[in-house]
């Protein structure tokens, strides 16, 4: 207990010592088998806090790669006539030169970039990087556990993710390029190796990578659910769990139930690709030749894909919602408004997410009468979502808000979620979808509501829990510049896209020069591209701030810098393996006692005073 030497035992330490319970964790020290040397401490670590950092940093590397890809295709969309020869040294053959020496981006490469951007951001960054990082970091710390239920499976979960990343990364360097048929991998482009350049080896590696990724999600998810249900400390009832934990818990359940369905779809796809069956293929001509695939249905694949695909968007957004709820409450110095309503709306969103998948397929030939069913349930999701938004705003209302980088990003999340959520109401209607499907309106909608919003939730989480992860603070001023620039920049990118979409500009197109009606948007496309470059530059600033602060940031001097009531801030500054040095704390109250009885905050480990009612109970 290095720090205890300098400052006398705090009130909280005494509480943990007296009220907590001894699980004999420190009795049998047969050398820390988890952290005995460099390899087991930092590489093949079984400590949830190290694994969280591994997920985060791997996710950040993928975010940079995925972001750079978007810049490449934005350059094509904003400046289709410009000379791209200067990219030749980096992109090589993917930049084609004409006789005059003017370079342009190869169309196949453009499609590959669009596909990879989607796959990488959705799965590697916003699933693994977001819920992988914060579920790992916060679940054991906030429920009062020494570690995950199975630290070994937890380690495997990260390394399967890592392996998935390696395979995907290799696919970027294939001579035929990575998969280029869209992140949804619809057949026939994904099922027939001869269908396009990326459909061969690129698609094979894409499939292998995604299967490894599914394994990673399942191992992680099983662990998260088990830990939340079985390893909570004494007194930590379900209704005393912070909303972060509720969100991670429900997210993990969604993953466990939906990713296997994707695996089934992939399994049949592998049969079609490798063994020549016709689950998803029917009467196709390639190069003038009829294939002998008969009787399959590509729509069947879409059903299987979107049965995962829709819960997947909530797998992305729910953890962000949990982080935002926590950050807003802490920095507004007020209890979260409507705690139970927040939990019920998480559960309602999770349930509804399983019965709305066909709204992604209104225009792919599903029965319009069946569409009605999906329209109704899709629109119903607006109800729990609106409950959450109302509660976030009500939490801020009248609060003594501290505008830190973390809380700014949390407020930004609410703004993004409202803007993006409202356009979801348009898209959820199958009739309006006739005009809007596959246009930039859709691109704008999901980028704002689950792309930018999820990133904002993630940034809020990183700024908030950075001290817990690295014992130092990130630079606040850079953080605020990062926030304001990204907020304005992100709206500048995606707001105009709504107008493009309403005019019918289709997404994924390489060039619009043959469509006269879309020519008028050339300037708008330039503007969007410039905004995208600006926003990307700000993320570079964030990355610099992040790595600089790991080693040079302002040191954390107190255990609980934000004055938060949750358990992770009762652990030592340099939290070792096992999280608490002595006893595990016992929990006596809900996590949102802010501004109660004249105190700024009351930690969850403080016993209720006589006659006091637990805040979560009413």
């Amino acid at each position, binding site marked *: 207990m290095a720090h205890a030497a300098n400052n006398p035992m705090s009130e909280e330490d005494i509480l943990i010592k007296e009220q907590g319970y001894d*699980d004999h964790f420190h009795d049998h020290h047969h050398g820390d088998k988890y952290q005995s040397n460099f390899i087991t401490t930092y590489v093949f670590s079984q400590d949830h806090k190290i694994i969280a950092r591994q997920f985060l940093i791997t996710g950040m590397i993928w975010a940079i790669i995925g972001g750079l890809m978007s810049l490449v295709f934005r350059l094509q969309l904003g400046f289709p006539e410009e000379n791209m020869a200067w990219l030749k040294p980096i992109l090589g053959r993917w930049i084609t030169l004409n006789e005059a020496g003017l370079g342009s981006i190869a169309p196949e490469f453009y499609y590959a970039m669009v596909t990879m951007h989607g796959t990488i951001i959705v799965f590697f960054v916003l699933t693994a990087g977001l819920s992988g990082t914060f579920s790992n970091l916060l679940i054991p710390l906030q429920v009062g556990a020494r570690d995950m239920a199975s630290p070994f*499976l937890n380690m495997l979960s990260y390394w399967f993710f890592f392996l998935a990343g390696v395979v995907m990364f290799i696919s970027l360097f294939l001579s035929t390029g990575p998969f280029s048929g869209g992140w949804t991998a619809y057949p026939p482009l994904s099922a027939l190796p001869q269908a396009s350049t990326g459909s061969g080896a690129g698609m094979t590696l894409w499939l292998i990578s995604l299967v490894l990724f599914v394994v990673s999600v399942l191992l992680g*998810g*099983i662990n998260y659910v088990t830990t939340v249900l079985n390893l909570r400390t004494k007194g930590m009832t379900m209704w005393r769990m912070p909303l972060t934990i509720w969100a991670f818990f429900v997210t993990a359940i969604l993953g466990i139930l939906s990713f*296997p*369905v994707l695996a089934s779809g992939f399994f049949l796809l592998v049969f079609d690709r490798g063994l020549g069956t016709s689950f998803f293929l029917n009467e196709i001509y390639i190069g003038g030749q009829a294939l002998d695939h008969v009787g399959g249905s590509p729509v069947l694949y879409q*059903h*299987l894909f979107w049965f995962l695909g829709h819960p997947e968007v909530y797998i992305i957004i729910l953890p962000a919602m949990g982080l935002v709820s926590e950050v807003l409450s802490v920095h507004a110095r007020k209890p979260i408004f409507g705690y139970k309503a927040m939990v019920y709306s998480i559960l309602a969103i999770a349930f509804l997410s399983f019965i709305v998948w066909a709204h992604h397929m209104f225009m792919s030939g599903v029965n319009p009468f069946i569409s009605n069913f999906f329209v109704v349930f899709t629109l119903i999701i607006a109800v729990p979502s609106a409950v959450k938004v109302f509660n976030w705003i009500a939490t801020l209302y009248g609060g003594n808000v501290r505008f830190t980088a973390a809380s700014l990003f949390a407020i930004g999340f609410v703004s993004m979620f409202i803007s993006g959520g409202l356009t979801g109401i348009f898209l959820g209607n199958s009739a309006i979808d006739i005009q809007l499907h596959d246009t930039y309106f859709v691109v704008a909608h999901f980028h704002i509501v689950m792309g930018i919003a999820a990133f904002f939730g993630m940034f809020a989480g990183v700024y908030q829990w950075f001290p817990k992860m690295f014992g130092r603070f990130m630079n606040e001023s850079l953080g605020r510049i990062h926030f304001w620039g990204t907020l304005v920049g992100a709206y500048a990118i995606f707001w105009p896209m709504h107008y493009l979409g309403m005019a019918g500009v289709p997404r994924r197109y390489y060039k619009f020069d043959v469509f006269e009606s879309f020519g008028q948007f050339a300037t708008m496309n330039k503007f969007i591209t410039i905004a995208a470059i600006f926003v990307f530059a700000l993320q570079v600033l964030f990355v610099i701030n992040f790595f600089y602060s790991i080693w040079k940031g302002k040191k954390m001097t107190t255990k609980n810098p934000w004055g938060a009531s949750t358990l992770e801030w009762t652990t030592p500054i340099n939290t070792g393996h096992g999280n608490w040095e002595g006893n595990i704390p016992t929990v006596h109250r809900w996590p949102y006692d802010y501004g109660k009885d004249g105190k700024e905050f009351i930690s969850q480990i403080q016993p209720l005073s006589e006659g006091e009612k637990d805040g979560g109970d009413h």
Partner: protein
Amino acid sequence: MNAMAVNQEYKRNKIHPQKFATWLACASITMMFTALTSAYIVRQAGGNWLEFRLPGIFLASTMTIVASSIALHGSFLAYKKGKEQLYKMLLLLGLALGFAFVITQYQGWVALQNIGVPLKTNPSGDFVYAISGLHAAHVLGGIVALIIGAIRAFSMPFKVTERRKLRQEMTLTYWHFVDLLWVYLFALLTLYS
């Protein structure tokens, strides 16, 4: 294991975390086959569906896996009662029946080919190959667990401990699960062909 040490303090928990995790894994696998079931039914409703009788050998394989489940259950009960001989014998019997199941499944695929439904004939047949193949892969996972269990049973001195009981119970849970799963799949493929 440190995580174990944590759990022993939680007397209020009725179920062991690792046991619970096994159940979750089964739930996850169930979703996988639910998806295939719905794909099967939806595709069948789409027409162009070759009708054929599932070869009788699949009934034999069903009985084999049910028998293996019973044997392994008996083995676990014998272990708990401290009957070493019976425990080891039934464990080996269950393992052998597990192998026999995979072999009969393979023979089932050969039989399917012989009645004129090789792969690529029609989705109706392809589904049988795909679904039973994926199931067999999960059975193989169970067989690996059983082999490890058998090696431990014969290499370690016989002793009834909580830790070993837990391991066996988890393997048994998984085995019963793949057993029930096949019984269900067999019913589906028979009744819905």
